[in-house]
């Protein structure tokens, strides 16, 4: 897959992999054996008919291939870019046993981009109006998926989004160079063209509560508010000027486009030396963003390379871009000058001990091994917890001790009648595609639930 070389791409925010050309896509598609009993489909959280769309690529019927994917997945341009296919469909590919699996993700991306760039995006047909109204809270991957599925089934869907732009993590969390915002906007536009109503600048839980929405006549609610609560280490110096949560760092860069300051008003976060604490995809995103803003970047992670939860591809990209890794190291405190600005971060070396609950070997500090890295920026990318706003303002909603909404696995129904939930708010911080998977389950269950209600006044006879 052609990619921007590292020394070029650290100066821009353009996408790294430039995508297949039509010929490259067909060549790759022809590798697929079109198995009668495809193993890959089971690995897809949204059950895309993978051999189905690949066959269409082989036949150079790219538009039809796009429509095939969209039968199950409303956001293929996004998933093709951000799904960890290597852990899902591609992991189960027969060809992967002895060689390289079919590059299913890249083919999905190709098809979605082709359709969008050609401008031939065909609107699917929606079922006749049912007269039912559904409120979707959060325009992130879960919310967009639920909306996309329900609108096709004829329901009137309104998405309420707290930020001024839809997309959730797709917009504020994942950088431009991994997921161009133009694509997110195009995908959202597809939904609004289908008839989904999108209301931004609306904070459910502050402006109106879930109960108020139900009182206003929404027949069902889907909560997809995500895991937007940053985690900090609570070490000394964490509130110094120059210490950011990954959420803030990425929101400034991705949503508020601080990398285009002063054209965009949100101030720049250009500094010269940054440390990013964490080993997940968010940490990689933050580190690679800092690199593009001109900083020398070091990732500090308390376990070893093998335990890093980030996608291997993103870790490799980070390495190629000249980002250093201090593995088996954990911060103890952050140091500042007399203006309370960050000047360094002190870390302790770790070694791996016995496995913990997650099955990974627990890091154990080595006494007396403190060392200091000189930095002026620290980004804490330790993971996120569920944002408590909606759970705290909704009566009768059962919430776990971790702050996640408790929802039935088969239906995503919560303890409150008519209220469903999915995505990070239920699972804790996870991936875009898992959120979409739960959203599909929820959409199906919501549809069935709506059918059990007495017919709405606007229902067609």
């Amino acid at each position, binding site marked *: 897959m052609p990619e921007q070389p590292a020394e070029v791409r650290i100066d821009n925010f353009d996408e790294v992999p430039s995508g297949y050309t039509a010929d490259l896509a067909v060549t790759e598609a022809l590798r697929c054996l079109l198995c009668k009993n495809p193993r890959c489909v089971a690995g897809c959280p949204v059950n895309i008919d993978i051999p189905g769309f690949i066959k269409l690529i082989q036949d150079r019927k790219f538009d039809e291939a796009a429509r095939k994917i969209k039968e199950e997945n409303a956001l293929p341009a996004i998933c093709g870019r951000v799904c960890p296919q290597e852990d899902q469909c591609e992991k189960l590919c027969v060809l992967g046993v002895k060689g390289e699996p079919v590059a299913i993700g890249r083919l999905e991306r190709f098809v979605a981009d082709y359709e969008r760039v050609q401008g031939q995006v065909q609107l699917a047909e929606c079922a006749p109006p049912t007269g039912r109204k559904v409120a979707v809270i959060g325009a992130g991957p879960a919310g967009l998926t639920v909306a996309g599925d329900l609108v096709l089934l004829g329901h009137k869907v309104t998405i309420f989004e*707290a*930020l*001024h732009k839809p997309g959730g993590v797709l917009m*504020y969390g994942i950088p431009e160079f991994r997921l161009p915002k133009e694509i997110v906007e195009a995908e959202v536009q597809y939904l609004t063209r289908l008839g989904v109503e999108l209301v*931004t*600048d*609306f*904070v459910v839980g*502050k*402006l*109106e509560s879930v109960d108020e929405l139900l009182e206003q006549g929404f027949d069902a609610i889907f909560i997809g508010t995500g895991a*937007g*609560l*940053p985690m*900090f280490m*609570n070490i000394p110096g*964490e*509130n110094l*000027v*120059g210490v*950011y*949560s990954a*959420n*803030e760092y990425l*929101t*400034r860069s991705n949503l*508020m*486009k601080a990398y285009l*300051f*002063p*054209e*965009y*008003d*949100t*101030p*720049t976060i250009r500094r010269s030396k940054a440390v990013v604490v964490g080993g997940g995809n968010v940490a990689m995103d933050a580190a690679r963003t800092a690199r593009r803003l001109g900083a020398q970047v070091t990732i500090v992670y308390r376990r070893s390379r093998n335990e890093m939860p980030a996608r291997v591809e993103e870790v490799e990209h980070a390495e190629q871009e000249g980002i250093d890794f201090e593995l088996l190291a954990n911060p103890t405190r952050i140091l500042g000058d007399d*203006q*309370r*600005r960050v000047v360094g971060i002190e870390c302790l070396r770790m070694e791996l001990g016995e496995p913990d609950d997650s099955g990974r070997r627990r890091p154990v500090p080595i006494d007396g091994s403190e060392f200091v890295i000189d930095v002026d920026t620290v980004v804490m990318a330790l993971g996120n917890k569920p*944002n*408590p*706003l909606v759970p705290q303002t909704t009566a009768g909603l059962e919430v776990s001790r971790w702050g996640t909404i408790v929802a039935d696995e088969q239906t995503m129904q919560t303890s409150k009648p008519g209220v469903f939930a999915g995505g990070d708010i239920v699972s804790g911080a996870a991936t875009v595609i898992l959120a979409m998977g739960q959203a599909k389950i929820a959409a199906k269950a919501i549809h069935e639930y709506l059918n059990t209600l007495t017919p709405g006044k606007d229902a067609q006879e």
Partner: protein
Amino acid sequence: MFRIVEKTEPVPNTHLVTIEAPKVAAKCQPGQFVIVMVDDRSERVPLSLADWDSQAGTLTVPVFEVGRSSRKIAMLQAGDEFAHLIGPLGRPFPIAKHGTVVCAGGCYGLAAIYPIARAMKEAGNRVVCVLEARSHYLYYQQDRLAEVADELLYATIDGSRDRKGHACDVLSDMLTQQRPIHLVVAVGCPFMMMLCGEATKTAAVPTWACLNPIIVDGTGMCGACRVTVAGQTRFACVDGPFFDAHQVDWDELFHRQAAYLGDEVQAVGQTDAPLHPHHHH
């Protein structure tokens, strides 16, 4: 789109902007704030509420011009629109009967203190408003405050009206005179609020300050607005904006607020010429 219904500059550098936002206006409560964006390139700017009218569907916010984003807002006129307005945000200030409640306001706080003063009065409190300004010509909203307060006390830094000094000096005077104060609510710049807290510390009068750190998302998602209160990290946008003035790490707040002043210099110098040159507000 959120249209500006009215815009005035009652005193130099302070603007009162009344915006059409029916849904938000219907839900506003004392102590809350909204976030506005002039256009899609703007910063998300938090502004305390000066008042709201659920009938008319409007809300009013004070804007103090102190940098690029506030300048952008200051240059708008009635009829212009904000691209985005989000609210109401923050925890409403708890209103209860305490006895004598002192509402101290300075700069934009002279407007922002009004909803709290009004609600405290309605709850049966004796309300004393302390108005701080650098000079007598910087007072505004006194008439409105007079409608809801039992007493108005003035502090001017240059001594041009009543007590020379800050709001904290008026508080000190009141305490020296052994006047009963059950609660103090302060809204203004951190410097003013910090001094109010210091004035009431020994007498242990509960004092609440409306903290205004830099805010980005406003819903508790990013942590930009974190402040340290009683040694704990809190988010001003969802845990606040009011906190116990005696427990706030003010030094940290001042420094965190100054984080981007250097970058802003670059932007302010390149701000576009006003849309309407030589207009008067």
